[in-house]
């Protein structure tokens, strides 16, 4: 793999490192939220429910309060008594309370919080809180939830201010949290046209994000203002939520966000902040809450999901109809589930031209840890279904999976599942490259050497970026010609701050050391919807570029007077405005700022994308542009054990314009690591509502040894494009079906339920009478 010690965007003087603050990072000196220390800071611990579903009968914290060193203990009932607090939160439904008030809804639901002088004391205090529970029938599975003999949320959802694109459709006295519908074309007519109809059920388990830095924040109150340093991907969402909880204007909540130790969706929306802020208020002191790894596992997860997918194809290989019924297990609280089911739901339409598509996608409450945003945002689950089924259909009808895909992938201008035309379509390019890099051969299914058999698999996916969405940025050009970007983009390892500095700096042809960028601070950096959904480089990048462009126009206006030429005859070059092609007739930015007596030039820009879907048909604008990726895997399966080794993986993703090559590769490689873990073993295992593997000794993530030794990347760039496509998640969803398809091609074993464990493969091999009869054999 090439490395990029530095990168020079064409036509600029910039030398771009992979990460601006790389030197700090390799010294271990970059500061995370958890490194913040405040004088007099207290340490918090949470007492959590041991039951999946239980009514809180009584809680007595008097013994804990009496323990020396304990400064405060708060319980749910304490909060219920307070008029100055609205103790509920949640990005769509306010269905989560700061602490359990009436009943616990999952094992780990926090019921009391302690603030003490040190962690030892806080921990000891937890043991002194007496809680009486009345256990209720738990809702532990999708079947339990749909049977509705027990209801997770008894009351209708409390709504609050939320997103423009939310479609809310709940059902009373049920565990259906939300229902998204898509109706494209005429589904009955579509299936009537089909010569073959296939119906299969696929499942994905809940998995955990496992950011290396767990959720944490420090909260304190200063002159009536709630201040937080928090590891969050969404400072403005958290601010709004806290203002609502404390019934204060948003100006009375100030959140700053240092760099994050990973997020992957886990750190979207309020999580640890509400309870910490209450503790800070009650104690009048700074309070830190820093979750343990075990707590992190029950804070937020990827949605477990079941998809029933019915697809109709004609005898000449065209997909003419698809009906998907999707159940997303959103756990005990909705979090962003009601919106995620939309993306995951329409995502089941896939990157194929299908005239007739119906989707019914449900978020379902259960008594498991809450599920929310997770890298891939529902599309991983959807792609697992449709890309597995593509190969299943091809196999049943004797077609080459590659050709079958090529016949159905969207072309330029053809309507996607939400009805809008696809533009900048690159699915076929991506698939062709993937097939070439993996060495796809339609005639060779499996290659066997002794008890090992190899096979290859392909997949292609489509993914939306949240639409509509809004980013804004402010910029200041100082009187020394340096540029300051005020942005609320969260740096969580994706190089956001580096990339935005490049995008801003290149507009004025500055050196990178002349550009600086702030961390988010809700008092000073302007609004951003959040660093999620692979939207930052495109959305915030656009806002930054617009703002710097504004500065450039201001400079031109000033320079036009100074140099006595028309604005149209000016250009920027190496930090100066010059008459086009005449460097001798130029003036420095700083000189212009000083002569204008402006102190600094200021500009602010808002980028808001438009779109949204019709609530009845799911038709409209699903995404400002569509993210596209392909994957190809070669696996080797041990026929005696079922164990899979991924020998080679290829990831292809369309980037539009690449803003930072090192980061583009890193994120794509990161998606491979994420995807292979989910393909092969990541899974939260519950027994009676108790998580069995909620720590990193029992829950495995991909190690360096688990990475394929051969990895190839195709970060596809279209040089004339100024449209940057987010790639933070895009190459993840293809991984799981590419591996599943490769395993099938190697062995004839089709796994419908992730992860593809050795045991499932071995059972599959046993179920096939003679596995070695499958495919073409070449004995070593």
């Amino acid at each position, binding site marked *: *793999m090439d*490395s*990029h*010690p530095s990168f020079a965007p064409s036509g600029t003087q910039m030398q771009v*490192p*992979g*990460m601006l603050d*790389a*030197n700090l*990072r*390799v*010294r*271990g*000196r*970059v*500061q*995370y939220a*958890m*490194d913040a220390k405040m004088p007099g800071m207290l340490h918090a611990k949470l007492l959590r429910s041991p039951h999946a579903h239980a009514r809180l009968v009584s809680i007595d914290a008097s013994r804990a309060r009496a323990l020396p060193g304990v400064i405060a203990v708060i319980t749910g009932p304490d909060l219920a008594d307070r008029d100055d607090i609205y103790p509920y939160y949640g990005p769509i439904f306010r269905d989560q309370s700061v602490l359990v008030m009436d009943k616990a809804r999952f094992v780990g639901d926090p019921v009391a919080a302690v603030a003490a002088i040190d962690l*030892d004391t806080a921990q000891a205090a937890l043991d002194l809180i007496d809680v009486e529970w009345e256990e209720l029938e738990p809702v532990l599975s999708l079947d339990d939830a749909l049977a509705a003999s027990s209801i997770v949320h008894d009351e209708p959802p409390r709504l609050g201010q939320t997103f423009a694109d939310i479609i809310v459709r709940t059902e009373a006295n049920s565990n259906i949290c939300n229902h998204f519908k898509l109706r494209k074309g005429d589904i009955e007519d579509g299936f009537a046209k089909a010569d073959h109809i296939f119906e299969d059920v696929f499942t994905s388990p809940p998995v955990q*994000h*496992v*950011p*290396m*830095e767990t959720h944490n924040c420090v909260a304190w109150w200063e002159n009536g203002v709630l201040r937080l340093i928090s590891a969050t991907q969404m400072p403005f969402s958290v601010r709004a939520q806290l203002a609502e909880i404390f019934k204060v204007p948003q100006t009375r909540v100030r959140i700053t966000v240092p*760099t*994050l*130790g*990973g997020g*992957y969706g886990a750190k979207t929306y309020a999580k640890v902040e509400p309870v910490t802020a209450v503790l800070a208020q009650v104690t009048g002191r700074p309070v830190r809450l820093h979750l*343990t*790894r*075990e707590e992190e596992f029950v804070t937020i997860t990827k949605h477990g999901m079941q998809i029933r997918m019915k697809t109709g194809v004609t005898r000449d290989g065209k997909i003419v109809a698809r009906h998907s019924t999707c159940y997303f297990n959103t756990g005990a609280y909705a979090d962003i589930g009601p919106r995620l089911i939309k993306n995951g739901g329409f995502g089941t339409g896939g990157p194929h031209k299908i005239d007739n598509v119906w989707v019914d996608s449900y978020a379902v409450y259960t008594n498991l840890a809450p599920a929310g945003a997770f890298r891939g945002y529902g599309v991983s689950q959807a792609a697992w279904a449709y890309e597995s089924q593509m190969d299943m259909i091809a196999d049943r009808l004797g077609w080459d999976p590659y050709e079958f895909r090529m016949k159905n992938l969207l072309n330029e201008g053809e309507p996607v599942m939400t009805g809008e035309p696809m533009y900048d379509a690159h699915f076929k390019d991506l698939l062709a490259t993937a097939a070439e890099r993996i060495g796809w051969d339609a005639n060779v299914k499996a290659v066997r050497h002794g008890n090992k058999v190899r096979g290859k698999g392909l997949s292609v996916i489509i993914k939306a970026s949240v639409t509509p969405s809004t980013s804004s940025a402010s910029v200041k050009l100082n009187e020394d010609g340096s540029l300051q970007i005020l942005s609320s983009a969260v740096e*969580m*390892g*994706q*190089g956001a701050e580096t990339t935005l500095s490049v995008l801003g700096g290149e507009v004025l042809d500055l050196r990178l050391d002349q550009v600086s960028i702030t961390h988010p601070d809700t008092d000073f950096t302007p609004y951003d919807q959040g660093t999620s959904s692979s939207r930052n480089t495109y959305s915030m990048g656009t806002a930054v570029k617009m703002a710097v462009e504004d500065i450039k126009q201001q400079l031109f206006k000033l320079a036009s007077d100074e140099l006595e030429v028309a604005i149209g005859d000016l250009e920027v070059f190496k930090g100066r405005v010059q008459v086009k092609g005449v460097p001798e007739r130029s003036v420095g930015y700083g000189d212009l700022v000083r002569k204008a007596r402006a102190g600094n030039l200021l500009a602010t820009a808002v980028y808001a994308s438009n779109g949204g879907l019709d609530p009845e048909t799911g038709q409209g604008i699903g995404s400002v542009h569509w993210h596209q990726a392909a994957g190809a895997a070669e696996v080797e399966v041990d026929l005696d054990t079922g164990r899979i080794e991924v020998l080679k993986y290829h990831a292809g993703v369309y980037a539009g314009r690449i803003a930072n090559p*090192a*980061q583009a*590769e*890193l*994120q794509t*490689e*990161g*998606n*491979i*690591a*994420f995807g292979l873990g989910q393909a092969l073993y990541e899974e939260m295992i519950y027994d009676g509502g108790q998580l069995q593997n909620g*720590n*990193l*000794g029992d829950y495995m*993530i*991909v*190690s*360096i*040894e688990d*990475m394929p*030794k051969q*990895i190839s990347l195709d970060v596809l760039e279209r040089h004339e494009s100024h449209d940057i496509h987010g790639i933070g998640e895009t190459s993840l969803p293809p991984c799981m079906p590419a591996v599943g398809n490769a395993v099938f091609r190697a062995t004839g074993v089709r796994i419908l339920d992730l992860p593809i464990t050795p045991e499932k493969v071995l059972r599959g091999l046993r179920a096939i009478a003679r596995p070695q009869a499958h495919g073409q054999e070449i004995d070593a």
Partner: protein
Amino acid sequence: MTAEDTVAGVTARAVDGDGRISITLQVNGREQRIQVRPHHTLLEVLRNELGLTGPREGCGVGMCGACTVLVDGRPVSGCLLPAALAEGHELTTIEGLEGPNGELHPIQQAFVDHTGFQCSYCTPGFILTSKALLAEQPDASRDEARAYLAGNLCRCGSYVKILDSVMDAKERLKG
């Protein structure tokens, strides 16, 4: 401060009124005398008492390596070692790697040049483990490096560029 606690002729480490014992650690070449509770881990003490934020907790069970500390040059999980048992050993954290004027160690420089990280939470652990690797096996192959580094987890999945960094660092160290 408290009465001597002797059992069968063996005296327990004396604790103060706050339940703390006094220990002396050699950290990055400096002797540090601190008060800790006997159950406090080396990781907790380095972070909380000595203000070293390079070692970080990732899992608390010795699996991830974000808390890696070199003990007499050998990588150990700071989260699984009671600080009191680290007495008498040379301890090195990432803060101890750079030169007197802040010059980067060649391994650190290689990680910068290859961008061998994303969120960089795990980076100090990887760099320290790489240092031990290249001290033990100056000619380590890419596969040997994979095996040695397998116990350091990077959830961002920067593994390809981490290996690139380590292989480059190997050449730089040979000078």
